[in-house]
């Protein structure tokens, strides 16, 4: 799968996650958000930048960790990215889907 944006081909896996974080731009994030039916506000961007920062440091993410981070409460996280907040926000942020070892 790929996303073509302003002539650039962005590689996605079959679930729509970026396979190469270095291809991410703000416009890519906005395009994925639009597909997910989310209009990005400053509050969304604050979460997305936090996730990307953690990802760059190889730090595994979880709902409770994010809830304790002072970036967003878990309730607000659900309001911003309804139903599956970590999955959807990760997709928009261009980082891998949360996964287990198998």
């Amino acid at each position, binding site marked *: 799968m790929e996303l073509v944006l302003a002539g650039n081909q962005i590689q996605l896996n079959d679930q729509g996650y970026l396979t190469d974080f270095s291809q991410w731009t703000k416009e890519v994030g906005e395009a994925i958000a639009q597909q997910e039916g989310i209009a990005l506000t400053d509050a969304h961007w604050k979460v997305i930048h936090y996730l990307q920062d953690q990802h760059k440091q190889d*730090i595994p993410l979880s709902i409770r960790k994010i809830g304790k981070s002072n970036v967003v409460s878990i309730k607000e996280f659900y309001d911003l990215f309804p139903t599956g907040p970590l999955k959807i926000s990760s997709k928009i942020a261009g980082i891998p889907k949360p996964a*287990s*070892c198998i």
Partner: protein
Amino acid sequence: MKRLLILGAGTAGTMMANHLRPKLSVTDWEIVMVDQEETHYYQPGFLFLPFDIYTPEQVKKPIKSPLPRVVTLIQATIDKVVPESNEVWLQNGDHLHYDILIIATGTQIAPDEVEGMMGEGWQKDVFDFYTYEGSLALRDKLRTWNGGKLVVHISEMPIKCPVAPLEFAFLADSFFHHKGMRDHVEITFVTPLEGAFTKPKATEALNYLLEEKGVHIVGDFNIEHVDNEKRVIVDYAGKEVPYDLLVTVPPNMGSDMVERSGIGDEMNFIPTNKATLQSKVKENIFALGDATNLPASKAGSVAHFEAEILTENIMLFIEGQPLKESFDGHANCFIETGHNKALLIDFNYTQEPVEGVFPLPGVGPLSLLKESRVNHLGKMAFRWVYWHMLLKGRPIPFVSANMKEAGKILETIE
């Protein structure tokens, strides 16, 4: 005399003591360990206790028994680490100076992080199996339970031994089948992830197990609270799953002493360099096992591989040499699937589990990502290996600290 201080005498701490004692001169270096427990538990056995597969005696030994002779074990509760003065303060008021500190304080369950989890149903119809006490209480419950809705539940990742909850569901299927009451039990597996399997190869190879064993899956479920009265678990999106018997894995957090020290992340795990195992707290503080924030599985095998690499790096650190960036996230885990069969998985930071044979390429005898009776025998034999080889820091034949690609089917997915 210099002092190497190890916090925690569990799997990781014990292995470090056994690796380092013969390497460090006894006239130059003393090794001191601190742990509040009196018992060393074989934690993989907590999965088997509830089903009466293991007895309590088979999963515990005195904490001192696997330790080398020439170490000092202080049985006390740690107050905090004070990196500025290279000290660890104990709750009894003692201050221990160190030259090198190894943090191996592991992870623990934090059921109080979920509202209602430790409510009136706790250890009546809500159980954990990540503690000795919880596992035994669940055994007593299962001996007399008449059936109904069994919900096996993961609160939050990361957890110790990420496959254990799924193994529990599979063993439960086998257990109730043999008791002749499988028809009276509905097994549901509830996870914050998308499903029971999240990696492409494992999903492809193992999805049949869920259908074969009649395990229903509820994914994307982030628990908000347990309603003890209605006997339902409720997630942040308002989704409910009813239970008669809830077997939950509460959120896992690092030790409280990490929080008191102010050296951990939001979940009290120690920020650690994923390749060298040096902490990001200070250069003379190292961490391994479940206590770190590494993107590796929290598992005994990971601690085992880390211990080999950390031993080398501690020796390099003492000699003033640069550390080796050699830990690759290697993990190797048996997965019990019930009916005397098991799977084996072998993976690292970048390579997901795939099919193949292990440990000898082309020979095995263990098969990767495939159910077999030999794998189950391997898991059963592992308890002996744990006490007599793993904890002692003796190398396991043919199993190296870094993951091997030989013997694996590694075709690229295109």
